[in-house]
């Protein structure tokens, strides 16, 4: 898969190829494990909006919802780990990601849970500033990209790898910017899809269009939250694949592997 020098466009090109190669069943597995987490985030946000300024009086309810969200977060991490491994296997020449993708090394997964927990805590702590979401997303992406490089349990190794691949990299920042734009586009597409389905369904006889119009309108906060979660689910496989490809290509650039592949391609052509 290492076909072009390390750049944002080459990472995006090759991540699209990785997603194409892993769409069934690994992207489906990723979605299946991510949906409970996104659903619980919707429930949490919905309860907060409903409680409003009285939210501080419902600490137990919010804490219980946050704890369940945390449990679903762990499930989503497992799905992401399997998907990242499938993307890495798909990037190797002549290898189709079969059941081997399920064999995520325990050390790599434990290190990933550790770094992803840092990203999650950072996101929520600095959520109000807006920077928390951006840095949390970048950290979470690098965590999944470097996951399989962690071969020994510990807390220093994963952080060193994050610093090595993320420190001062313009490509990491530009990828985050590209995926922010992709999120907006996905948001519009998911909203349009819901509207189109509603418009088509309203032509069917016996359809209670008035009732569904209330549910599927932008004045319904649950519908808006669902669209945001849907957009995040749509871009998630591409985000994971891009980070896996980025780390792999950056590693290949350090070892000279990219030059070897380029030379072999030159000899063949």
């Amino acid at each position: 898969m290492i076909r072009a020098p390390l750049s944002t466009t080459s990472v995006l090109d090759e991540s699209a190829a990785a997603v194409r190669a892993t769409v069934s069943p690994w992207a489906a597995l990723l979605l299946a494990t991510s949906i409970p987490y996104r659903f619980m985030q919707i429930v949490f946000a919905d309860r907060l909006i409903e409680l409003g300024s009285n939210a501080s009086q419902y600490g137990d309810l919010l804490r219980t919802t946050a704890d369940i969200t945390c449990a679903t977060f762990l499930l989503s991490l497992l799905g992401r780990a399997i998907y990242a491994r499938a993307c890495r296997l798909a990037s190797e020449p002549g290898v189709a990601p079969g059941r081997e993708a399920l064999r995520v090394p325990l050390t790599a997964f434990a290190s990933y849970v550790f770094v992803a927990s840092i990203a999650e805590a950072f996101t929520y702590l600095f959520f109000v500033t807006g920077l928390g979401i951006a840095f949390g997303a970048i950290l979470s992406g690098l965590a999944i990209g470097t996951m399989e490089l962690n071969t020994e349990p510990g807390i220093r190794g994963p952080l060193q790898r994050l610093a090595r691949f993320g420190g001062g990299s313009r490509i990491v920042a530009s990828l985050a910017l590209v995926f922010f734009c992709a999120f907006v586009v996905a948001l519009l597409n998911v909203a349009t899809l819901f509207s189109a389905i509603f418009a088509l369904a309203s032509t069917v006889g016996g359809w209670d269009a008035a009732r569904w119009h209330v549910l599927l309108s932008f004045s319904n906060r649950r519908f808006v939250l669902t669209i945001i979660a849907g957009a995040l689910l749509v871009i998630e496989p591409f985000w994971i694949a891009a980070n896996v490809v980025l780390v792999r290509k950056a590693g290949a650039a350090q070892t000279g592997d990219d030059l070897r592949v380029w030379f072999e391609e030159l000899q063949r052509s």
Partner: protein
Amino acid sequence: MRCAKTLCQECATQWDGIWYCAGCLASRRKSPAAKSHLGGWIAVIAASLGLLFLGTRFMVWTGVLLAGLR
């Protein structure tokens, strides 16, 4: 490369998708007998549990703060 050394292609060996130098490969081969990772496991599990606990608390605190601003 795991140890971040700069090596030529001939001196590096790929194992399970990761490049190793001869030294790293040798240490990896004998590591199960020579080295226990118990400390590392305890550290990574304890740190993960602590961070997950903090993450849920930050989620609630930030949520309440934002809800209070409305």
